[in-house]
């Protein structure tokens, strides 16, 4: 299966001969999402430390809040990855239709899922980077009597501060790089799943992924500029 990383063209060509199955692709997507969620979980763990002093929150409520914030972040990351899987497959399906693409959405979904394997590696690297990041982070200073609005503002500011950290920027950069890797695989996935030329598959994948990478780079550059101002 790892041949999808080195020779995706051959991998998908052979997969076309098999029946459409979503089990393994779904597992890949879920695993990638879960690994990404672990990074979020680690950062949220730092955040919830500072919330224990809030007067308005009882011990039981705090425990529930911690559970929601940490495990919720993990769960939501998995759900979001599944949604994104569907969205990406749908976008590719739609654009490839313009180029006369034929083939089922299920096949598209299956191949896009295989194309998410780099996200697993990316997730593992992101966890390693995040583990180093959380050691340098200190919880935000939240006044005991902070109102929900103030709490929201403090967490928002703290999140921006976290994003300014070099390790966070590295994580974002790695995310872009691994997305490019995925995109490379998705080109061959679309080519075979939709039966279009390599050029059309390049356009099908390149347009939405290029737009996403441009957006991610713009955000990363914005964070870099604001961090250098500090």
């Amino acid at each position, binding site marked *: 299966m790892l041949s999808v990383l*080195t020779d995706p063209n051959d991998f998908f060509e052979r997969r076309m001969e098999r029946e459409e199955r979503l089990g393994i692709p779904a597992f890949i997507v879920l695993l990638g999402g879960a690994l990404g969620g672990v990074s979020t979980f680690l950062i949220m763990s730092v955040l919830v430390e500072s919330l224990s002093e809030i007067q308005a929150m009882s011990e039981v409520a705090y425990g529930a809040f911690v559970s929601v914030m940490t495990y919720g972040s993990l769960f939501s990351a998995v759900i979001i990855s599944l949604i994104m899987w569907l969205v990406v497959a749908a976008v590719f399906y739609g654009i490839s239709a313009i180029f006369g693409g034929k083939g089922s959405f299920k096949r598209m979904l299956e191949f896009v899922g295989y194309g998410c394997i780099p996200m697993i590696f990316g997730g593992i690297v992101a966890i390693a980077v995040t583990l180093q990041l959380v050691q340098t982070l200190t919880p935000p200073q939240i006044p005991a009597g902070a109102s929900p609005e103030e709490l929201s503002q403090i967490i928002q500011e703290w999140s921006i501060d976290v994003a300014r950290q070099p390790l966070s920027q590295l994580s974002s950069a790695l995310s872009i790089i691994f997305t490019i*890797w995925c995109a490379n695989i998705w080109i061959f996935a679309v080519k075979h799943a939709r039966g279009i030329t390599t050029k059309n598959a390049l356009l099908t994948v390149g347009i939405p992924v290029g737009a996403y990478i441009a957006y991610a780079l713009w955000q990363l550059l914005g964070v870099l500029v604001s961090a250098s101002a*500090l």
Partner: protein
Amino acid sequence: MRFGFFIFCFVILIFCFVILSSAEGFSASEEEAHLLSVVSCEMHPAVFMPRDVGTITVTLAAAGEAAGEGGVEIESVYLLGRDVKVLSGPYLNIGRIAPGECMNITFTVRAPFNDGIYYPKLLIETGSGDVLRYSFPFRVDGAAVRMAVADIPEDIIINERTSLKIAVGNERPNSVRGVMIKAEITKGSGEVVPSEMFIGTLAPDDRKTLSLNFTPLTEGAHTLLLTLSFKNGMNTHTSTLSVHLNVSSQNKRPDIIISGIEYESDHNTLRITGDISNAGLSAARGVVVRVGDGEGFEAVYPYPSYFVGSLNPDDFSSFELNVRVFKNKTTIPIEIEFKDEDGNTFRRTEYVRINGSETQKPSAETSPILSVVLLIAVFVVVISIIYSWRKR
């Protein structure tokens, strides 16, 4: 001849009669005078200064049952001062003093020029023509209330408040009242606070020390003129004291500087550390380092300010401050507050650059590691992509 001798004998007889009559009257007056006594003789002020004007109050009393039921009739009372000038006239037809009762008679007098003890004489004539003579001591003492410099700092610095201590002592044998001191600069320029000091009454040999603050505005020789006024009875006396003060620009006060500033950035909170030293020639007290006022940042716990305490000359200490910085802030003002030995408070503001070459960012130390990780990731992905396309 016989007629002449007769005339001569007649004259002698008349003379003897007159003499005997006078002798009989005199002895009678001495007896009357014994019924009258001078109980007290009070002077106000108790001790006069030369040329002082004051009062002498004489208290007369009739001597009990011996004076009979009618008491003693006082015809007149004179005060003969000689050197002590009596300003008020004699008392005439005063009246009768009942047995066992007293009568006060007051004279206004002016003391002579010279110090000494004088003996004015009191003549009291009774209704029966008896005369009582009474002399009493009248003391004149020219000793005054004096001022002296109790303490003046060795160095007086321009524009710096200096505390001066003035001692006031009463050398007189009697109390004086209304003691007041006025201070003014007669040479040079400066401020004296307070410019007037009221002491009040000073008992004999009493001493009080006053403090006044002198802030010179110019350099060089200054003269502080102290004018002391007091009242001895109703007489106001003044004396002056010129205090010469040399004002220099030499600064011996504490000179606090900060150095070795470093900071660590923890997301948007800075931990600023550094050394604070006293480069002056005197000790600094109550040294506090705090984040100054401004926008775009705020001091946060645990160290919004840092109390250093006392810093002796050539001494130093470390400090730490925590600042929450918002975006686009490149300098942080650090305010240093300290007091000198006299309690004068000084403040100084230093600016710390947080985006310049003098500052350090420990997080930057991780940059090589980040670069390596990034390069490896890029390398792996690029190789993988290239390989996948070549396989095609």
